[in-house]
């Protein structure tokens, strides 16, 4: 249990929640969050958005009952959280692009902080949010509202790319990267129950066999991913 410091809407339906305490975590890892004592029963996986000396932040979209409960939390109220879980983005050398779509921008902020030389591409369907946070730390930030941000990315410019977003976006990026030497890592999603690798509820089919998104993932090199088994954001 930890105390909520602040919980504010950036745009309608999309919130940043800051929670008090000393927390660990790397770029691309997530926490399991749960609020209240009854329904929903299961905690919800949310990526680490930012970590400070005395706090951790999450950027989340209200999609159902669980995230709706999160949005109602007031400063001073308690939330249950466990983590950090998952593998996160790898340590890489050389040029790097961070490509996020919608909520998929959430796990990229820590990467942008860690790699200030990275070029950031952010795509949104209707309304941009959280762009300033990237602008404060990144060398360059390109934003597109509507259409596909992937059109603006030239994979040949980058040794590595980290991406998270809707499946069609990830797939388009993968297609564009096929004949390049750029290494693409994508963050995947699955419904989760335990979050630590015990229930096999989040298993995803990959080229290397079954993988637990919560344990071996959520970040995978694109070569391993079977796109037809990827559930969208």
């Amino acid at each position: 249990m930890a105390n909520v410091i602040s919980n504010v809407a950036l745009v309608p339906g999309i919130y940043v929640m800051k929670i008090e305490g000393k927390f660990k975590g790397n770029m691309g890892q997530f926490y399991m969050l749960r609020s209240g004592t009854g329904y929903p029963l299961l905690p919800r996986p949310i990526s680490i958005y930012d970590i400070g000396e005395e706090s951790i932040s999450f950027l989340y979209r209200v999609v159902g009952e669980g995230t709706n409960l999160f949005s109602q939390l007031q400063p001073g109220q308690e939330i249950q959280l466990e983590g950090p879980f998952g593998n996160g983005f790898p340590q890489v050398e050389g040029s790097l692009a961070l490509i996020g779509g919608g909520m998929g921008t959430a796990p990229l902020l820590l990467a942008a902080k860690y790699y200030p030389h990275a070029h950031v591409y952010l795509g949104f369907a209707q309304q941009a949010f959280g762009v300033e946070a990237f602008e404060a730390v990144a060398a360059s930030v390109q934003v597109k509202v509507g259409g596909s941000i992937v059109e603006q990315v030239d994979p040949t410019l980058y040794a590595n790319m980290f991406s998270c977003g809707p499946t069609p976006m990830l797939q388009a990026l993968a297609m564009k990267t096929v004949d390049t030497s750029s290494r693409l890592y994508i963050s995947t999603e699955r419904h989760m129950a335990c979050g630590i690798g015990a229930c096999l509820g989040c298993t995803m089919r990959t080229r290397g066999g079954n993988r637990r998104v919560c344990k071996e993932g959520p970040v995978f090199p694109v070569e391993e991913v079977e796109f037809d088994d990827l559930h969208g954001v």
Partner: protein
Amino acid sequence: MISMACNIAGVPFKNPIIMASGTFGFGREYAEFYSPELLGGIVGKGLTLHPKAGNTGSRIHETASGMLNSVGLENPGVAAFLKDELDDMTHWNTAIIANVGGSNLEEYVQAVAMITENAQKRRTMNRRGVDMLELNISCPNVKQGGMQFGIQTEVAREVVRQVRNVTALPLVVKLSPNAENITQMAVMCEEEGADGVSLINTFSAMKIDIRRRRSVFANTYAGLSGPAIKPIALRMVHQVAQAVSIPVIGMGGISSVEDIIEFTMAGAAAIQVGTYNFVHLHAGAELVHGLEQWMQREKVQSLDEIRGIL
């Protein structure tokens, strides 16, 4: 001095709190958060003779006060379990129970024979093996086998009889709430020489994605667990406990010390915790400490004082 200890089919348990199959892996993942030695026992993920990849598509969905799962018995197979998992598990001072499933009779028999032989071999080397078997005739999430064996008593009888023939290990049969008559099923298990029964496995259930106009699960149906099923599980444990004289291990939605007491009052010799492991990462440890405190507060020296009082 209060004592939480209990004995089931000759196997000592330091307390009646056992982690349910499929919800605790083989213990390793949870061991990073608290010591499995606190627990009475661990039932490993359901095993089949051969490795199984499990179901494709969505595997879990939350419902009102419960969850649906369609994992489909993904597991490494008996041989890999004995080679890669058992050493770590027997390292912990807690009872180790192997949960065994199968797609046909021969698979059940072979899987059980392999585990039994392994346990005997280890014993000659003075090493611990599997302490107990839990026969899973109740998994609703596999197309072949699993629950199909757990619906009709006479079909199940053959599995229990043949498995009993090849093992001297303590044998508990895990019953399905989808059985035509769960009491009859339990009586049959006792007749065929089972050392105990455990119940319940998940209810066959469903969720439709109305936008896509299809079931959320590739297998159409999935298994319902969690607090939503607790009242029915409790009733079934009560009925079965009255019908048999072998120990009954109760489970289904247990999420608090009060739930454990209810199942004990209904006649359970021990209980298993499944879905609650997902609600609280430290569920097992929390319940063990909570039960001890409850017994102290209520001045109950042993759960025998309240077991089966209804």
